[in-house]
């Protein structure tokens, strides 16, 4: 199977997995900061992450992109650690650092030798509350972010289509606003707005500390108390009660033609429920459904029908994540073979789905997927950084450590009936947006 594929289409599928319970400890500091420790003593390395429960879906109207913008600004200075020095100090320790923002959270991490953990905590705690940003720094960073938007969104028709589809998918939920922000709103953000955003959202009671690697939980807790414990909680943190979707009653269809497109494709997203605390069964069924329909480049239902039994597509896939605060999407992608129109590709995709709804789940496929779920728990232990990501993301959207640890067993317990019930619920075109990415010639 070909593994290289167009960057907009590379939807990898992986079962999130949980480390064995005896490797994971969790605490809460008096100021409300959650702490998770994942032990992996094979190499003297530690991943230190702080996750804030603030993402693009928490932004005020008109301020799109401010959560991501602030992620950049967190690398500017404090009195103790001047601008740009945090990354320099991490590098001087031989470590690496970075950060990322999604719709639901913003996270910062360093990967360093395990004995440098205290220093990382000192700097991370310092910038949680002591950041100082000059007007000049703010304006230059705004230019950098506009460059980033140019590179990652405006320069890529597939990203632009994704952005348009999300805006059409959510009638009311703020997930319709792009994480990087709309260009005109980024360009209008001010220094004062950024600082107000910082003071409202960066606080220990809005943060989760995840430490993974060659550490023991008691030491981590002592260091966390020393470094993060003195930080005052904020009284501005509100529950994340965001606007919710009304019933979606009409299918939405988008066609984006761009002269930079070489390989057209059709993508469909359906509104889908997310994993919820203590209630992950439906999400687990959707995860298995995505794997059955499009998780394998050889044996999944879409691939077999569109690439083996017929030659309609060169690539097909299905995706679902499930880790989010509010309902998200379940998606299908088909890249038609040369000479096949997008209309024919979409019709064929719909026929495969309709046939699946009639035929149901092939028991051999389900057995094979269960085997892979079990194995993925073993393979996952090889990468404590990935485990740190999994726990951090789950906790940042309101799941618990227990939810993360229950997840593999819930996946394992999914039945064919569960899968079909989830499919009936979600694969409804009234909840869906269908997008065509096409060349200018074929759109005419």
């Amino acid at each position, binding site marked *: *199977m*070909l*593994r290289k*594929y*167009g*960057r907009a289409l590379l939807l990898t599928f992986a079962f999130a997995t949980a480390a064995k319970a005896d490797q994971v400890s969790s605490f809460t500091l008096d100021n409300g900061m959650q702490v998770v420790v994942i032990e992996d003593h*094979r*190499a*003297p*390395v530690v991943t230190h992450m702080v996750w804030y429960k603030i993402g693009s879906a928490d932004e005020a109207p008109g301020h799109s992109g401010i959560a*991501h913008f602030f*992620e*950049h600004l967190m*690398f500017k200075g404090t009195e103790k650690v001047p601008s*740009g020095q945090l*990354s*320099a100090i991490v*590098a*001087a320790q*031989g470590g690496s*650092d*970075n*950060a*990322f923002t*999604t719709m639901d959270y913003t996270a910062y991490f360093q990967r*360093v*030798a395990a004995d440098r953990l205290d220093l990382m905590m000192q700097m991370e705690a310092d910038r949680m509350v002591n950041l100082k940003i000059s007007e000049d720094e703010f*304006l*230059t*960073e705004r*230019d*950098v*972010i506009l*460059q*980033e938007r140019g*590179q*990652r969104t*405006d*320069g890529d028709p597939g990203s632009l289509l994704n952005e348009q589809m999300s805006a059409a998918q959510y009638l009311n939920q703020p997930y319709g606003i792009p*994480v*990087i922000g709309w260009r005109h709103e980024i360009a209008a953000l001010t220094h004062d707005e950024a600082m107000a955003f910082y003071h409202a959202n960066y606080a220990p009671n809005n943060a989760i500390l995840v430490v993974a690697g060659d550490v023991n939980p008691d030491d981590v807790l002592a260091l966390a108390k020393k470094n993060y414990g003195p930080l005052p909680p904020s009284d501005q943190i509100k529950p994340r009660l965001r606007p919710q979707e009304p019933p979606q009653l009409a299918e939405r269809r988008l066609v984006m033609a761009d*002269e*930079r497109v*070489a*390989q057209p494709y059709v993508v469909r997203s359906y509104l889908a429920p997310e994993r919820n605390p203590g209630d992950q069964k439906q999400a687990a069924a959707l995860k298995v459904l995505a794997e059955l329909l499009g998780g*394998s480049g*050889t*044996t999944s239902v879409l691939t*077999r029908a569109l690439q*083996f039994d017929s*030659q309609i597509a*060169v690539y097909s896939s299905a995706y679902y994540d499930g880790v989010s605060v509010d309902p998200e999407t379940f998606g299908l992608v088909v890249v038609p073979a*040369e000479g096949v129109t997008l209309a024919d590709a979409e019709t064929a995709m719909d026929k495969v789905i309709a046939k699946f709804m009639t035929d149901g789940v092939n028991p051999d496929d389900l057995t094979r997927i269960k*085997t*892979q779920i079990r194995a*993925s728990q*073993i*393979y996952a232990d*090889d*990468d404590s950084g990935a485990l740190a990501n999994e726990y951090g993301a789950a906790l940042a959207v309101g799941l618990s450590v227990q939810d993360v640890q229950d997840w593999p067993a819930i996946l394992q317990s999914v039945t064919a009936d569960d899968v079909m019930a989830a499919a009936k619920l979600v694969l409804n075109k009234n909840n869906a947006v269908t997008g065509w990415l096409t060349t200018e010639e074929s759109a005419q």
Partner: protein
Amino acid sequence: MMIRIAALLLALATPVLTTPALAEVNIQEVTSPGGIKAWLVEEHGIPFTALEIRFAGGTSLDAPGKRGATNLMTALIEEGAGDLDSQGFAAARDGLAAKFSFSSDVDGVSVSAKFLTENRDQAVDLLHLALTQPRFDPDAVERVREQVLSNLRSNEKDPGNIAFKLESARSFGDHPYGSDGDGTIDSVTALTRDDIVAAYKGALAKDRITIGAAGDITPAQLGAILDKLFVGLPDTGAALPGRAELNVKGGVMVEPFPGPQSVVIFGQGGMRYDNPDYFAASILNEALGGSKFDSRLMTEVRVNRGLTYGIGTSLSSYDHAETMLGQFEASNENVAQAIDVIKAEWAKIAADGLTEQELADAKTYMTGAYPLRFDGNETIAAILVGMQDMGLPTDYAKTRNARVEAVTMADVKRVAAELYKPDDLHFIIVGSPTGVTPTE
């Protein structure tokens, strides 16, 4: 998900200094009863093994007129083998929860496998089947060929890919490094099943194998696997290509491309990893455009001027050539200014080398980062292959940091003056930059 700096650099082939090892990591050299050598790091904490196999040569072995044959062949290895067709093979592999990945680059074909201890023998049998009896069924050939062609069509409109192809052609001309190993739409369309079988016989042979393993396996168990895996492969494969002659003439090339952004690749000649001055060169690269956020180029182009989202450079050492390349993207109106800044930095480092502080910072970074590399079985297995291919001893880890520390200010200044050649610097711009005058 937005990441502050996405992995910047260049989809180049085998990365350069993927070498080193943690002093504590115990690398064993294993020789199978049948005489096959491999490096092993035993780690019995998790019940699986990662196995990395590399066949030297890769896409540079394509026969004349058959560009893309090795790439297509590699993508077909797990599309059916022995008595299993494509579906049967995938079902067998997934049923064992084994993971196999086959990929090709300009210097080799890589096989990355991981398998559970509980069904290791069955997984190895299946991998052996794929390596030694791939079917290349006509329907699979057509299906995967269409995927490759679809990719090639996408690449034709991908500015980063266009820039890299122009860079390769400009630097290496007629050598295999000068053209895309994936082939062209015409060359891939014309490939026959016989071409694919010939590419297979040329690329996967016993005279060019390097093996690394890490995980829940003993030397004796690994030896037994090695004696099974390659039975049936030919003793010798196709001849490796010779040295590539690098075109080092400076200049500016503009390839028109629509949209608000330009992709820019810039570069000049590099240095081979076995050169005694390689660590001095690595330190210089780290300070100028390495992976740290505070490199000179990141500071001057991004932080101080906001001209780009990210910029970086790397020393790229292939089996048959060495280059030094950098890359950035910028709005069309920012490109000219960014290029001026880069040229000034190039002249500055050539004339003055580094400051004491930069030298010290680069050393702490490189020596501190070194032990962090060995943090998982898959990573370790791949590093073991890289170390062997560079001809390093198993105890290299113990001396490596001392060699970094030994680099002096005088070394750095001398090597900077020899290595950085502002007049050789060339720029390939794909986009619609304003205020840029092409010279070629």
